[in-house]
């Protein structure tokens, strides 16, 4: 059970890292061609640590690439937020803010995990994610309080993405087991910090927090949208053709 809870977090990081990496060479300015891969690298790095630890706990000899390249879309356990297509730069930055604003307090809490390996992963990730919060938060403010067009695009992004934030605070059975064992932080308890941070950024960005949004979930049960399958088909294409090869 505990290893499955780690896979949920790992899948979140990998899928979002992959999405960010799709921007590579196509960002709106050169500075973002540096910043986006930078965040992608942090996320993929965290995913690798988590997969490795999940594999050890599982004890069936699976490693990071087994988890990443040889599970299908029904086996991936990421939340729906991270698999949403990049959309425009406003959507990408808002998605990043939503996720990072959750992960920062989450990693901070995980620094006192009962699992030593996890404490190590969290200690590294917490510093990285602080930059993600800052970077994405600054962009959300710039776009929200920029031009009419940027504000409209950002508002559309909120309308499209807010419904996927509720799932961040839901714990699956596996997550609850890991939380009970003191290995992972309790997701619901992160909400206050997240809400405060998002509230602050939205105020500065002159954005209104949407109200009464029906939250979507399903990712932890492998009930994804239709985009993840395409992402995985591409991501796994070489590895699957050369099953067993070393790279």
């Amino acid at each position: 059970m505990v290893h499955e809870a780690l896979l949920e977090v790992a899948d979140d990081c990998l899928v979002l890292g992959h999405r960010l990496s799709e921007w590579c060479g196509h960002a709106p300015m050169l500075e973002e061609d540096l910043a986006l891969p930078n965040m992608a690298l942090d996320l993929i790095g965290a995913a690798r640590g988590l997969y490795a630890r999940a594999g050890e706990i599982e004890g069936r000899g699976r490693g990071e690439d087994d988890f990443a390249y040889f599970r299908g879309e029904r086996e991936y356990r990421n939340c729906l937020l991270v698999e949403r297509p990049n959309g425009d730069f406003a959507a990408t930055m808002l998605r990043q803010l939503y996720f990072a604003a959750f992960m920062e307090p989450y990693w901070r809490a995980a620094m006192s995990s009962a699992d030593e390996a996890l404490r190590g992963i969290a200690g590294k990730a917490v510093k990285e994610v602080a930059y993600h919060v800052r970077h994405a938060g600054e962009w959300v403010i710039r776009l929200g309080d920029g031009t009419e067009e940027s504000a409209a695009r950002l508002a559309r992004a909120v309308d499209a993405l807010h419904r996927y934030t509720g799932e961040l605070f839901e714990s699956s059975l596996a997550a609850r087991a890991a939380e009970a064992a003191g290995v992972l932080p309790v997701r619901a308890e992160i909400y206050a910090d997240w809400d405060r941070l998002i509230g602050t950024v939205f105020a500065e960005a002159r954005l209104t927090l949407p109200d009464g949004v029906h939250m979507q979930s399903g990712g932890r049960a492998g009930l994804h949208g239709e985009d993840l399958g395409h992402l995985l088909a591409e991501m796994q294409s070489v590895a699957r053709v050369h099953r067993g090869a070393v790279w």
Partner: protein
Amino acid sequence: EEFLAAFQARIDAEEKIEPKDAMPEGYRRTLVRQIGQHAHSEIVGMLPEGNWITRAPSLKRKAVLLAKVQDEAGHGLYLYCAAETLGVTRDEMTEELLAGKAKYSSIFNYPTLTWADIGAIGWLVDGAAIMNQIPLCRCSFGPYARAMIRICKEESFHQRQGFEIMLTLCRGTEAQRAMAQDALDRWWWPSLMMFGPHDADSPHTEQSMTWKIKRFTNDELRQKFIDATVPQAEYLGLTVPDPELRWDETLNEGRGGYRHGSIDWDEFWRVVEGEGPMARDRIAARKKAWDDGAWVREAALAHAAKRAARNVAAE
């Protein structure tokens, strides 16, 4: 006349020329063109490798490739900054690139067709780039020389990573070895072309060498590259796709070197003139990124202006 002589004397004394120094217009123009082309090459060079980030066959390779492409964006940034010290803006240079007026390294107009191309590009293309660039660390123009020192360090790291990808493929399955050989077959000749035309057909070389912007001729650098690379191919167990390649101990002042078959200069000029297989796709991709990003850049400027106005008002 006097100024030119004094300037040349500084160059000959290996003094660094700095942006605020007076310099001949030709020197400035040559540098703007060369540094700009170099910067554009880094930017366009992100695309062929970027094409495999989403398909990298292991998480480790995915991370390494992402970091490499990120480095290239960084190199582009240093180089645009170096060019800006000569009075041209990054936006101007970008507009020139997107209008098809500025050149960049032709090698990036070839497609990456398999994962092994990522290895081959690191090994061969970065390898050739380093041969070209190491002498530039001693270039007479200070900002360019300093940018190159930093870039060369990272490039040689990339080159080792590329070689390591090739090595892993060559020690892997039969399909992986075939993929590696295929990549070498496709990238070898374009890599040799990276050094430019033969010295006899390279009219600017002499002036650039006098100004110590360039330190070796195209053919000298190409020979160095071949001599360094052929043994590496042998180590990998791969065949260099040049049936005329052979060791000649009379080369390199008796130290020996490899004679190579003749380069297809028709292909070279065709690609230089913008008919490389991916040329239009590369510019289209950069143009799309630039155009799609216009509203983001405008929003950032608008926000900065608002913020500045508010700060003034608050004072």
